């Protein structure tokens, strides 16, 4: 087991190195004059010369690469060109807001997608199966930004059920700020025992989380259904039925455990999707997270921020895959042997 984890970690590290290489190439090698890109369209020659020196662009590419890697390791991911904010700090500062969104969406996806997939597999061909099948394709075909806009326009704009944007009401955040512990508004408000604030935060979270959940819910339901169908055809399920075990137990405790491995893989993939999906949701709902940081950087060609977020996203994806693999091994005793 330990050996296996070690090998898995090692290969992740190798991939990580390769990823930094890609971001390096994208940032320093592809643009014909990186220094000009760094300063922006109105750069004066003197300034370009200064930045060239500052970024070490006058040195050879391998030397630049080494310097780039050294800085990354020291936690110096550069600073935003637009705001001069340090990139890594900027990401970390916005991380809780984004995580709050992603984790809520994922929770919805699992709590809704898994049971629906199980039911659909049990009831193949029946109305509920048809609804789940079509619903799940609808989920994965949905343009997330459009869904967000529609929900915002109708549920919040027309019906006024929930607030349209941001994480908290202005009055709450200015007059009654939540003490900062974790950065997760829900948790911080609960710790402080401010229930009104907690309700406000939850209200703001509902729409963005639901929007972001559409795709992973569809994907999870689809995958759960497919793998449950496969499992329900296995000999060992026949054994369980032959021995009179209750259908509820067979479905939810036995078969689901078998079927969960592929679902877990899909959950991992969904996380990766959410990492970029949150860009759109944060834009639509004015949610102050990494996504907004990213879209602003992308539109303003704010190089250091773009590269920082790319790297961060890849690291995030890599860690999720690692966790999924570990859980996979916990779930299926046969995986441990490999």
């Amino acid at each position, binding site marked *: 087991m330990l050996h296996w984890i070690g090998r898995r970690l090692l290969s992740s590290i190798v991939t990580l190195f390769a990823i930094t290489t890609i971001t390096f190439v994208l940032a320093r090698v592809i643009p014909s004059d990186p220094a000009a890109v760094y300063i922006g369209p109105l750069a004066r020659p003197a300034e370009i010369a200064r930045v060239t020196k500052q970024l070490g662009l006058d040195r050879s590419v391998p030397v630049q690469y080494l310097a780039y890697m050294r800085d990354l390791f020291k936690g110096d991911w550069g600073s935003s060109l637009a705001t001069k904010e340090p990139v890594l700090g900027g990401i970390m500062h916005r991380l809780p807001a984004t995580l709050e969104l992603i984790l809520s969406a994922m929770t919805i996806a699992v709590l809704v997608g898994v049971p629906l997939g199980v039911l659909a597999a049990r009831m193949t061909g029946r109305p509920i199966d048809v609804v789940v099948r079509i619903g799940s394709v609808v989920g994965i075909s949905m343009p997330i930004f459009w869904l967000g806009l529609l929900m915002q326009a109708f549920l919040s704009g027309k019906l006024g059920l929930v607030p349209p944007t941001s994480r908290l009401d202005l009055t709450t955040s200015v007059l009654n700020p939540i003490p900062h512990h974790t950065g997760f508004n829900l948790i911080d408000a609960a710790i402080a025992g401010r229930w009104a604030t907690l309700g406000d935060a939850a209200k703001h979270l509902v729409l963005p989380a639901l929007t972001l959940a559409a795709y992973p819910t569809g994907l999870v339901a689809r995958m759960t259904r497919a793998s449950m169908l496969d499992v329900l055809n296995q000999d*060992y*399920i026949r054994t369980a039925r*032959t*021995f009179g075990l*209750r259908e509820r*137990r067979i479905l939810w405790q036995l078969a689901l455990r078998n079927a969960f491995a592929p679902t877990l893989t899909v959950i991992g993939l969904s996380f990766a999707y959410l990492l970029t999906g949150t860009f759109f949701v944060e834009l639509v709902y004015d949610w102050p997270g990494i996504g907004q940081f990213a879209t602003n950087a992308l539109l303003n060609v704010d190089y250091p921020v773009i590269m920082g977020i790319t790297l961060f996203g890849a690291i995030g994806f890599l860690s999720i895959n690692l966790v999924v693999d570990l859980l996979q091994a916990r779930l299926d005793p046969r995986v441990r042997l490999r």
Partner: protein
Amino acid sequence: MSALLSVDDLRLDFVRDGRVASHALRGIDLELGRGEAMGIVGETGCGKTLTGLSVIRMLPTNATATGRIVFDGRDVLTLPERELRSIRGARISMVFQSPATSFNPVFPIGRQLQHVLERHMGMRRKESARRVAEVLGEVELPDPERTMGFYPHELSGGMLQRAMIAMAILCRPSLLIADEPTTALDVTLAEQILRLLRSLQRKHGFSVLFISHDLDLVGDFCDRVAVLYAGRVIESGPATELLVRPFHPYTRALLQALPRHAEPGTPLPAVSGSVPSGLEDPVGCAFAPRCPLVVPECAVRPPLAEVLPGRKVACYRWEVET
């Protein structure tokens, strides 16, 4: 004493797109006494496995069954699903052909046996664990407490089949259906498993429905034998008599095809021709096209008739010696 199980004109059809796609069982009649072991023999596809599954109504979704299967005075085919479930695994249990795929790969063996006890006996976890260990010892698995913690892939085929048998006798059933329980094992292991089954049967007195394609094995193990051909019983009788003096030409051909009957140096005889497909519905004897003794009367199917005390055969020419 009344029979524990009596099967009366059991028919099973597979349906596809609303039409009957194949007749799998075309009217099975069987009777099994308490404590008796009965063998069901036949080629692949003759319906022997489906017969076994029908007894606990574990039918495929696209199958419909008619007839009567009376177990302990109640018709299994009309029993409400709930009652059926409390019979499955408790009063009637089953041992399968491939122990390796019949256990769930992600749960330890012990837990899977405990599930059955907790379901039928309402036992708590601790209690069921104690009982499982006890029964695992009864099927001669070494170190039961430790074995309980193993996952299926960590045990050998023979050990798994022992565990499967343990699972089958956990709730002291009155009927055990064994569907080719030794086919996936090598010869010495198969011997051991059979010996175990026999001693357990003697000890607990349950009836056994032993499904196999191997006449010798069935002859060894069972009190009585029923031979199936194309979804019907074509001959039945006490094992000792039937194997020594078979009446039906098909049974005779099967016996002659066994290696022990072969003359050294001559090729093994095979039953020529093949079983009619499930869709054809021959009016006459289904075996007629392959039968060496066929006569014009065979165009009308012979009924299964008791020709001697305890001996039934569905053939006009059962007395003809070959």
